[in-house]
């Protein structure tokens, strides 16, 4: 959309955004520590979000760093549970049990900032 000679209409922009969203594949990685309460809830919550909003177009990998701490290297993991949105760019991180659905949706780019009560995350 950037650099277009004629600015698109609002309807065109919305359609294009919807098409882009519908086609974008999400690659997510959730770092947990075994069966601890927050980790269990985080797994369940993010799976529900994916099934509802990203059905058929997501890859979710759950990584248990309590068994293999080395798997936390390279991703700048500071705490667990941590969800990382690897794709689509930009990379985003979410901490906690993923129970704040609106904030997660906003951060994943699945909800517009104006519609959200929380202004954090990528629009």
């Amino acid at each position, binding site marked *: 959309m*950037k650099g277009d000679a004629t600015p698109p209409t609002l309807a065109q922009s919305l359609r294009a955004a919807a098409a882009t969203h519908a086609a974008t594949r999400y690659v997510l990685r959730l770092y*947990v*520590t*075994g*069966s*601890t*309460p*927050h*980790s*269990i809830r985080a*797994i*369940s*919550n*993010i*799976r*529900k979000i994916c099934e509802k909003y990203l059905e058929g177009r997501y890859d*979710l*990998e*759950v*990584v*248990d*760093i*309590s*068994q293999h*701490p*080395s798997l*936390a*290297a390279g991703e700048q*993991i*500071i*705490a*667990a*549970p941590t969800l990382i949105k690897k794709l689509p760019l*930009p990379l*985003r*991180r*979410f*901490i*906690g*049990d993923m129970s704040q659905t609106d904030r997660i949706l906003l951060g994943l780019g699945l909800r517009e900032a104006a519609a959200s009560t929380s202004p*954090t*995350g*990528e*629009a």
Partner: protein
Amino acid sequence: MLAKSSSFSALHEENAELRARLDEANEMLGAIRGGEVDALVVQSADGPKVYALQGQDAENNRFRGEMLAQVSDAVIAADSEERVIYLNLAAERLYGFDASEALGRPLSEIYQSRWPQLEDRAVAKTILDKCGEWRGECIHILRDGREMNVEAGAAVLRDTTGLSAGTLSVVRDVTGRKRHEDEVLVSEVRYRRLFEAARDGILILDPATGKIIDANPVVTQMLGCPDTRLVGKTLFEVGLLTDDGVGHDMVAELKRANQIRFENLPFESPSGRHHDVEFVANLYSENDRPVIQCNIRDITERRRSEEHVKLLMAEVNHRAKNMLAVVQAVAYQTAKFGDPATLADRLSGRIGALAAGQDLLVKSQWQGVEVADLITAQLAHFKDLMGARVLADGPPALLTAEAAQGIGMALHELATNAAKYGALSNSEGRVRIVWQIIDDPKPTFSISWLEEGGPRAEASGRRGFGQIVMGRMAEAAVQGVARITYGAGGLAWTLTAPLDDALATAKVGP
């Protein structure tokens, strides 16, 4: 970074990114402060180190996790929404999911359950809700469609307040065992059917005690009591052996030779009827446990049949010898008397007469020959005259084999003589063959050949073989008396004999 941005748009994006990162950092700090994380990861020279924030609980969780990971049965935990929150290595292998893929998914995506009965699912859930645990068997259908028989135990997971927080299941694949059990069941049904449908009596004994363990219906019928009364008794006690010592000897011999056979064991049934039984005992091993199988066959009928066959063979042998002797005598006498030019014809005719009588005897299995049938067979050459010029009349009478042979030969000679010289040599003559049974003064059988309308009959000067057959041979066959008279219209022949010597029916009774 702002100084390096070349356009307002780029500056805006970069600013947004920095704001997002800052928000992330703030969130992280807030989450750590707010107790929303379970562990912190600290980068060290040896790589990342994970520090649990729940202290002893975290350590206990880790310990439990490690223990469950070592369990060979599949362990799978689900939250109250039936989403997978834990699965051990065995569960990953069993269901073909790794933990990363399975965690958080609905349990129904890992496997589907199929229950033997429709209501079993509801029953299991009720038990689990009520008792907090359930154990049982069902079928898990994997995502590739394979079905797996499982033995499962499920327990309700409770949170610190005691409320249900999910379910922990321990699952064992028993498909192989189930298949084996099914095969054993099929085998048991199949061999039970053979055991019960067998025509032989079958008994299973314990070699240690010599007592009956199992008996099929044939044995119960043979011994006249239900199997429940046979089990626990010895062969002597149920009457199959007349001496208990024989039973002990049999077991000892079986242990030595593995098989024992009694070809002809006398046995008296509860009704008092005598039976001959064939008794075969074998020592087998059933799952390393020795058992004796006894097959008992009632051979009473077979033995009777064998005796009958033996008797028949002796009779056939005797008759064959007799017949050869008769043929030899006929051949000799035929050659001795009469024109040598006609020897072949005469001999052939006489042997044919013997054969006709023999055929009738074979048909009746040597039980005897009806007089009417004998006449028809011996006068086959004159069948066109039967009922017209040859009249036969008499009651049903079954001749003995010997009488049939003697009278048959005599009829042949009489017919041959009548055709050549007697009542059947012209166009008017007739023959009446009549036979009767006379009771008074003694039971007697008589048969007559009476010619009428033929040329005058006259006794020839010399006694030919035909006359020997009609006279001496016929008499010898029935222990009777033959009389030949020569009249104006032809020859008359009468043979009279005691009823018992002539007729087979007289011997066997009414």
